[in-house]
């Protein structure tokens, strides 16, 4: 690892070996396909984070004895994205099904020739399985091809530690807590109140998670786009949603409410375990993450209340089948199975990923679901109630790249490396550079 040139060589050698093996493998599977039609087909599913599909895989394998499913999971999206990009561009290496997060969806939907048009496999009939905007987002830019089937949407709420709230003399009941903060300014005031009583703990986990939440919420209520407008022009310095989210986040940080942790890092996970902060804005998909990171010791200490400033959506994904798949027909069938209303309900039960199917959203299994870890919070009801009225936010094809640099500058402000004014200037400059070179 200490020798990059040698490393590059190693990579080249490895790549060529893989190429040879892939050729050999392709030949082998081809010959197998022609000789024995009933042989086992292995479908690989590439995804990130927690999709909650384990039970569904078993169920599908039991119903289709000739199918074997291998999930290749990568923990964080920022590691997953460049790999997927490489595999798709190189035409080899991607799974038979790949998960595409909404933040990178535009980038991949803009390469329709790299993905199987699911309409070939009866995709058009699935329209009613999805919220209308989720259905539209799964299509290529011109709307002619169905590329991704929606999995979840990222309804927003605020998770909080009841024990820390009690310590600060704040109410702990979720309805009363939600009533404390109709707006972000009210949330800031409660934070200051909390800090004066419990100075040892942070009120917010850190800048980036809060920023993304406010940005997606504000954008969802206004322009419906973030860094890029709908013609893909960079509008980082003119879109008021970005400035609002940025300023609001900086205000919290300057008031000393932040625990200065970067989302999705080890220190952040330790923060959950140690109960270092009292609140975190939590999209539905984050509940599973909190439970894993905070561990059994924190069971019953967390609860879920409504988000300051109204609802919104951040995150959510699609399943797509790359054209490089050897078994597009089988892969498409599996993707349909995983994303149908029953599949979405199962994923919700496993990891609280909020369904994008209207049928699943109104299903009693979802609306009546209480999460025992989160003090029996009726998370199904909390998240599902706003989900049908959600408006999609357009994220440009270089959304991920720009988001990363802006997050980094916020992090630097949060940890006192940059003044807010210098941070904003730098964020705009960095965003422009990322958009130009990305």
């Amino acid at each position, binding site marked *: 690892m200490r020798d*990059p*040139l040698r490393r590059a060589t190693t990579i*080249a050698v490895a790549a060529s070996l893989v190429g040879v093996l892939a050729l050999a493998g392709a030949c082998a599977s081809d010959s197998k396909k022609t000789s024995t039609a009933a042989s086992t087909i292995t479908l690989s599913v590439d995804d990130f984070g927690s999709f909650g599909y384990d039970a569904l895989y078993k169920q599908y394998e039991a119903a289709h004895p000739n199918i074997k499913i291998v999930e290749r999971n990568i923990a964080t999206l920022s590691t997953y994205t*460049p790999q997927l990009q490489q595999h798709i*561009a190189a035409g080899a290496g991607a799974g038979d099904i790949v998960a595409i997060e909404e933040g990178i969806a535009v980038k991949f939907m803009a390469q329709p020739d790299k993905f199987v048009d699911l309409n070939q496999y009866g995709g058009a009939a699935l329209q009613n399985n999805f919220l209308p905007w989720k259905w539209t987002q799964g299509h290529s830019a011109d709307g002619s091809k169905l590329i991704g089937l929606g999995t979840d949407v990222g309804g927003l709420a605020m998770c909080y530690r009841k024990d820390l709230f009690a310590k600060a003399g704040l109410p702990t009941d979720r309805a009363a807590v939600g009533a404390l903060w109709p707006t972000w300014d009210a949330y800031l005031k409660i934070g200051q109140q909390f800090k004066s009583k419990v100075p040892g703990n942070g009120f917010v986990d850190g800048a980036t998670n809060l920023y993304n939440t406010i940005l997606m919420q504000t954008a969802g209520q206004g322009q419906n786009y973030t860094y890029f407008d709908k013609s893909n022009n960079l509008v980082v310095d003119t879109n008021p949603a970005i400035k609002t989210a940025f300023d609001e986040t900086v205000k919290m940080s300057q008031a000393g409410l932040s625990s200065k942790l970067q989302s999705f890092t*080890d220190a952040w996970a330790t923060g959950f375990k140690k109960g270092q902060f009292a609140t975190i804005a939590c999209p539905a998909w984050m509940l599973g993450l909190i439970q894993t990171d905070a561990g059994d010791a924190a069971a019953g200490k967390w609860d879920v209340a409504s988000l300051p400033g109204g609802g919104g959506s951040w995150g959510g994904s699609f399943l797509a089948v790359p054209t490089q798949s050897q078994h597009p027909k089988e892969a498409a069938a599996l993707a349909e199975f995983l994303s149908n209303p029953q599949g979405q309900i199962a994923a919700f039960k496993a990891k609280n990923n909020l369904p994008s199917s209207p049928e699943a959203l109104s299903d009693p299994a979802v609306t009546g679901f209480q999460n025992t870890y989160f003090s029996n919070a009726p998370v199904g009801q909390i998240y599902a109630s706003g989900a049908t009225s959600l408006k999609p936010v357009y994220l440009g094809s270089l959304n991920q790249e720009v988001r990363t640099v802006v997050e980094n500058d916020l992090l630097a402000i949060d*940890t006192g490396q940059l003044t807010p004014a210098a941070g904003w200037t730098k964020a705009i400059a960095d965003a422009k550079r990322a958009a130009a070179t990305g």
Partner: protein
Amino acid sequence: MTLDLQTAARPKPAPARPPRGAWRNRLDAKASPYLYISPFYLLFLAFGLFPLGYTFWVSLHHWDILGNNHYTGLRNYQLLLTDPDFWNAVTNTVAMFVIATVPQLLGAMFLANALNRKLRAQTLFRMGVLAPMVTSVAAVGIVFSQLFGRDYGLINWLLHFAGVHNIDWQAHQWSQWTAISTMVDWRWTGYNTLIFLAGMQAIPRDLYEAAAIDGASRRVQFWRITVPSLRPTIIFTSIVSTIGGLQLFTEPLMFNQNLMQGGSLRQGQTVAMYMYESAFQRFQYGYGSAVAWMLFLLIIIIALINYLITRRLAGGRI
């Protein structure tokens, strides 16, 4: 192959005039040594020199992920020289190299000097210094990242007794340099100690005895005999450390939670990380190759400077 040549030559005994067999023998004597060492050079050619040259070729192009490329001449280098992120990476790399290498080599030399004396359990101590080398870099990276944790790290806990509170080791440039250099030193000091020790054992004992009779103290003996005699060893270790130190990659990467930018403001990004980021995350292969070549040049320059300094330092004393 050479054996075949010889057996083929044997049935014809050499007559008066030099026949073909003698010519073959001469060829054998001249060529076979090269043949014996050729496997290394052939492998080096295929896996060392060729990639080096090819990287340079790629660096003269705009080269994207699909292999689409067009010739741009030295434009990548031109861009690189005005790229603030590149110079930031160079600063970090050189700073960490200096902060890590100077105490490392000095420490290794004193440690080797101590181990060169008669000690109980000599082998245990001598092998003991090598123990950190056996640990995987990744493990070192993870453990040290936790030691240097802001909220629950051992180092900050120790520092709070001295009245220093919660240093955010990832946030500042100087703190990243310190933490990463500590990691490097922990791993490589023992390795250099053993090399110095080997060098010291090759110094004739009678030099020290004569000096002792002349009344030279241990310290004078160290500076006047040991250090000058170690000159070739010092040059070797400093060049090897230069190559290793300037290619620093895993330690800063692990310390920054696998963030290739090495922190929110690129506080800990080294040139090797910037190369990786350009080539394998932004898929600008041409630009990444240019970074690789600049790193290569940087290593040559610093190794040369090192060579000149150490030659003067060690040579000027006696």
